[in-house]
């Protein structure tokens, strides 16, 4: 006979504002098999949990239903409380009265009725729950860090310094990411390369880090603690064991007119190239799409000049497989480019640049060696306009979010310009100045007050060319939308930060969620910012949303701490919510008929065939068997099973039918 306890939470006023919690508890008390029902202001608080624990002990409850928030939020909390009171944690279920009821409906009788129904469903389900025990699996203590920007570098170093093995995969020929492209960084104006390159070298030399550049994740299998990663090592056409990085090949290569990715198209590179002089590893790769030999079949200049014979044209892509315990995604972001702004003439006018291009102009390692010069004619611009929120906060452009870093880097750009062009005039068009952060607001004030940058609050409607100048037409909304027209020599668009191309594909490979803008989704916006919905896969940096360097580094260390925490155990306990094939006494053994349809349905190869043998060793019957280490608990096999021999613990047929019938029977 069931003795169910029902506990209805008010969640302060989050639930009780629209649901009559006392009535729900009273009605629950009348349900069949319910021994005890009550309501309380904060069930998740310490006194709330004590209330549940005491009731379990005093009333001898055989099951618990907590009507509160989403089980995705507090199911572990309440299950733990039950376990502490001596009740098997899997005999506790949560009814979602907040996200699925009180927050989405008005205060009326129907809402309370719905709450009662939701509780009733779970009461009927929990009656069919069975006590389960957690599964223990071993952990491979090796982390995979995807992306070698500042986020990946920080995470990899933190994990490696804690004594654990790390594999870093970077798709470009060098690590460094966007940070290596930056000139100086806000709010201190210290040189980006100066603080980054030592860390890049540290990664390359660290005994615990294996670095694969020009490589991509091809495939990821398995689960937390036991992933299997297949990595594609793209053909570099250069044998790195022989290459000394002398750079002779890159100076002699005849294909010299390829826009450099590192310089955002403002400079040129050769077909065999290292992305930038401080690259790690400082060894070249051949860009086959632009190489004369690969395209036309003759040239081979690099092979002739190479003193060590390192050039190998026929090297294919290689695939390696690694056992991994945890993954850190640090794939970063991109800035909106292309011809996204026809009204600003980007792509049409050579001197209308993105913020990242301006970084290259201002950088000492850039195409102009740090002098601000127009790409069109090499002249020093005397008047420059910066346009903040180019794309960001513009629902019409499909980007309603704030890119967060643009206010700060625009102030920095204007400052750098004023420092380099003393007689120049700079203007910034902005919507709002968002300078939240330590010393950030002071930095913007410095740009305005000390460096004399002209800030104009308003939007730019149009840019057009007239007599070698760019006419920027906008409005000053602080002067009552007064039209403003500036004859500029150069325009810099603070284009929105967007997700990387390929982010969606990568997310699908790893089965992690992503949001509407293809940024990776964290498991909880506040309490689990570095976790993903997939256990063992963590996030850091701008692949989750645009963010600045300090925040990225903080998040990377956070993700690293999670990995180190995971690796501090030798075994991992997993939820026992997996499929099982029934077994019974002879002569039946199992209702499984051995058709093994489940085997074809299983995405994890978790189902094996097992032979049941008699005493003489002859096979009596072949049945399916679930490997509990591999089963992830999707339950696809359960819906497939023709003889209903396979069932899922925690979501069994009995439980699900009980829920549906409870809901519909008055």
């Amino acid at each position, binding site marked *: 006979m069931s003795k169910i306890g029902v506990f209805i939470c008010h969640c302060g006023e989050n639930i009780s504002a629209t649901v009559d919690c006392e009535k729900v508890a009273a009605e629950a008390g009348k349900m069949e098999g319910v021994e005890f029902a009550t309501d309380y202001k904060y069930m998740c608080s310490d006194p709330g949990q004590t209330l549940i624990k005491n009731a379990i002990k005093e009333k001898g409850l055989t099951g618990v239903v907590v009507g509160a928030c989403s*089980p995705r939020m507090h199911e572990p909390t309440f299950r733990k409380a039950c376990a502490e009171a001596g009740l098997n944690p899997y005999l506790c279920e949560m009814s979602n009265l907040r996200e699925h009821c009180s927050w989405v409906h008005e205060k009326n009788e129907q809402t309370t009725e*719905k709450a009662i129904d939701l509780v009733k469903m779970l009461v009927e389900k929990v009656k069919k729950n069975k006590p389960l025990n957690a599964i223990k699996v071993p952990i491979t203590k090796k982390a995979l860090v995807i992306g070698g920007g500042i986020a990946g570098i920080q995470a990899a170093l933190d994990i490696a310094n804690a004594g654990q093995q790390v594999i870093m995969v970077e798709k470009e020929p060098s690590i460094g990411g966007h940070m290596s492209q930056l000139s100086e960084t806000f709010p201190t104006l210290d040189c980006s390369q100066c603080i980054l390159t030592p860390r890049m070298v540290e990664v390359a030399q660290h005994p615990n880090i294996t670095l694969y550049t020009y490589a991509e994740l091809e495939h990821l299998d398995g689960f937390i603690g036991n992933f299997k990663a297949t990595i594609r090592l793209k053909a570099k056409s250069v044998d790195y064991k022989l290459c000394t990085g002398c750079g002779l090949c890159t100076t002699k290569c005849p294909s010299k007119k390829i826009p450099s990715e590192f310089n955002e198209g403002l400079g040129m590179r050769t077909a065999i190239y290292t992305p930038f002089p401080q690259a790690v590893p400082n060894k070249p790769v051949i860009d086959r799409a632009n190489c004369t030999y690969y395209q036309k079949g003759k040239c081979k200049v690099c092979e002739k000049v190479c003193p060590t014979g390192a050039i190998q044209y026929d090297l294919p892509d290689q695939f390696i497989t690694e056992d991994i315990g945890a993954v850190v995604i640090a794939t970063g972001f991109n800035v909106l480019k292309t011809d996204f702004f026809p009204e600003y003439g980007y792509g049409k006018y050579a001197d209308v640049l993105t913020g990242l291009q301006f970084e290259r102009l201002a950088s000492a390692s850039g195409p102009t060696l740090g002098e601000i010069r127009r790409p069109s004619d090499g002249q020093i611009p005397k008047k420059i306009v910066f346009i903040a929120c180019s794309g960001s906060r513009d629902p019409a452009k499909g980007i309603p979010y704030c890119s967060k870093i643009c206010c700060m880097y625009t102030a920095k750009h204007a400052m750098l310009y004023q420092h380099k062009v003393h007689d120049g005039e700079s203007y910034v068009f902005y919507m709002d100045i968002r300078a939240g952060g330590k010393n950030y607001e002071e930095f913007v004030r410095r740009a305005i007050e000390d460096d004399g940058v002209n800030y104009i609050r308003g939007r730019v409607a149009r840019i057009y060319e007239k007599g070698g100048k760019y006419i920027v037409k906008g409005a000053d909304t602080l002067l009552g939308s007064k039209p403003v027209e500036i004859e500029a020599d150069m325009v810099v668009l603070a284009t929105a930060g967007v997700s990387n191309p390929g982010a969606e594909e990568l997310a699908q490979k790893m089965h992690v969620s992503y949001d509407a803008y293809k940024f990776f989704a964290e498991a909880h916006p506040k309490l689990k910012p570095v976790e993903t919905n997939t256990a063992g896969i963590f996030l850091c940096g701008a692949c989750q949303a645009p963010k600045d360097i300090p925040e990225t580094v903080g998040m990377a260390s956070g993700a690293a701490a999670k990995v180190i925490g995971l690796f501090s155990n030798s075994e991992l306990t997993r939820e026992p919510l997996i499929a099982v094939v029934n077994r019974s006494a002879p002569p039946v053994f199992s209702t499984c008929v051995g058709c093994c349809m489940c085997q074809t349905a299983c995405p994890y190869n978790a189902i094996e065939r097992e032979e049941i043998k008699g005493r003489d060793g002859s096979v009596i019957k072949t049945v399916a068997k679930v490997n509990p280490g591999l089963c992830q608990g999707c339950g696809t096999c359960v819906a497939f099973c023709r003889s209903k021999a396979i069932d899922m613990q925690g*979501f069994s047929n009995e439980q*699900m039918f009980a829920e*549906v019938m409870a809901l519909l029977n008055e």
Partner: protein
Amino acid sequence: MSEFEPKIVAFVCNWCTYAGADLTGTSRIKYASNVKIVRFPCTGRIDFMLLLKAFAEGADGIIVSGCHPNDCHYTSGNFHARRRWVIFRGLLNFMGIDVNRIQFSWVSAAEGAKWADVVNSTVTAVRELGPYTKYQKAADYLAQQDQSIIDGQEAMIIK
């Protein structure tokens, strides 16, 4: 007479639509209170016998929703669900069950507003279709037949 309030059951997966419905709540988007959610680990777990059972027990409409194609937490559960739906829909139709009462959709964990839309549009559509008692009656009748056969057998044994 008050308006007909349909009873609708939603079978959703834990990772996308259940989380999406949580987001609807977190975003405080209001929707009709006729829909009650049953949580499954994956749409691939949803045995379509459950849908028949729901109709037999008096549901007026059903929503099945999970992750978008390629986004399944378990790689391919939603593809199995989709394939099963394609086949099952034809069978239901043949059996004389109104397939317009089943709404199959993809709602991701980021689509809180879409979940509200799916619920509201399904409620409106089912409200127009009216109460669904045809299958319930048929199921009840069959259950009675079964019972009388069983009773008859018992009577025979006693004799």
